[in-house]
């Protein structure tokens, strides 16, 4: 496993629902409201805390969408950083499933 692996989990404070191919996301803690495009929705839906972001980009994004892998990884990291700033995603250097088992 690469040393720079990051794992993303959806915050328990958020509400989310798909509408017409996009994901609506609301953070009840601060009432921020977003809609995510198709690519962002794929990352958000895969944010299970146990799948490395690199793997999500490789298996979900690059396979479904016609994007350059390096660019997709950079875009995904920026997207994750922004949503972490809004309290929608939580980033960890370790898988959350492994943590709960330890």
């Amino acid at each position, binding site marked *: 496993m690469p040393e720079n692996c990051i794992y993303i989990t959806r915050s*328990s*404070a*958020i*509400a*989310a*629902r*798909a*509408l*017409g191919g996009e994901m*609506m996301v*609301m953070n*009840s*803690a601060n*009432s921020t*409201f*977003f*809609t995510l495009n198709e690519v962002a929705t794929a990352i958000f839906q895969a944010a299970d805390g146990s799948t490395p972001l690199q793997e999500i980009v490789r298996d979900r994004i690059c396979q479904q969408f016609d994007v350059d892998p390096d660019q997709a990884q950079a875009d995904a990291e920026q997207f994750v950083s922004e949503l972490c700033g809004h309290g929608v995603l939580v980033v960890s250097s370790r898988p959350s499933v492994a943590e709960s088992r330890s």
Partner: protein
Amino acid sequence: MSLVSEVGQRAFDLGVPIAVHLDVTYRCNERCVHCYLDHDDHGEMTTAEIKGVLDQLAEAGVFFLTFSGGEVFMRRDFMELVEYARRLMFVVKIKTNAVMIHEEEARRIRELGVDTIQISVYSHRPEVHDAITKLPHSFERTVRAIRFLHDQGLRVTIANVLMTANSADHKGVQELADELGVHYTLDPTITPMMDGDTSVLSLRIPGEELPEIFHNPALVDNQDDYCAPPKPPSKEDLEGYSCSAGHAFCYISPYGDVFPCVQFPLPTGNVRQQKFLDIWNFSPQMNEVRSIKVKDLAVCSSCSHAGTCSRCPGLAYMEGSMRGPSTADCEKSFYRTGVPTANMLRHGLSKPRTTVPLIQIRPVAVPA
């Protein structure tokens, strides 16, 4: 247009029920003088049944979920239902009198990520509030709960229903809301009881007192626009719809009956007998409601208020026709702008005539 409004419009266009109001019980610990509900339990849904409904609502695309009643905390499983709803990632709003909320409940509500809590407060004067709820010390308990919820950082709104007994108290309640650091909303609507008893309508504040509310800048934003004489309705107005009932919103009773809105007692199906989406998509009644455009309205399509009126099709239905006028809204349009409505003019009235709605939501299938 805000992002939330844009999303709401998209749901409307796609026919997705983005918001649902679910009453989990009609039982209540208060006996408010104006309440329209029958507080006896005629066989409300079980915990498992409600969880099953929530699963179906999530699958149908519902995002905004309002839990209401009766008093929601009369159900011992209420927190379990909220927890389940949040696990399904709904935006959860709770309507309550808050009398049963203490520090522990407030903390749990915050932990569960509830979006907003709307709490009924009738007066800033304890004796007036308690006289309306008929529950001694209810004011004291409700205000204490608001402080607990606010201390948890939760968004709280005080809902101030106005009637004859408290019509002069809205300023005091608004000041109380400011002092508590919570939002304030006012509602002058009183509806008949579920059994058809219309005696509570005598509690409505007289129409002549409505201008004082509509023209009060402390209560209504954008006074100039809100109270301006109506512009002639545009083609878009006439091709549009009255409201989101049946288009992007519906109501489910504690007995599983589905209606277009909490204020629109047209039975469309029951989730104990049918899948929610089957009712939403295929109920003839639901489809009839969503087929009606403003241009199809018998009287209102020719009214100068057609583009700005808050006409409620549910109230119109209660008066006899979902395509007819809603006299309560005619009254509001008139007292808001001073311009008579088409419904008034056809009766040669210089002031609105208050008619009495005849139909109310009641259990469709009462178990034997």
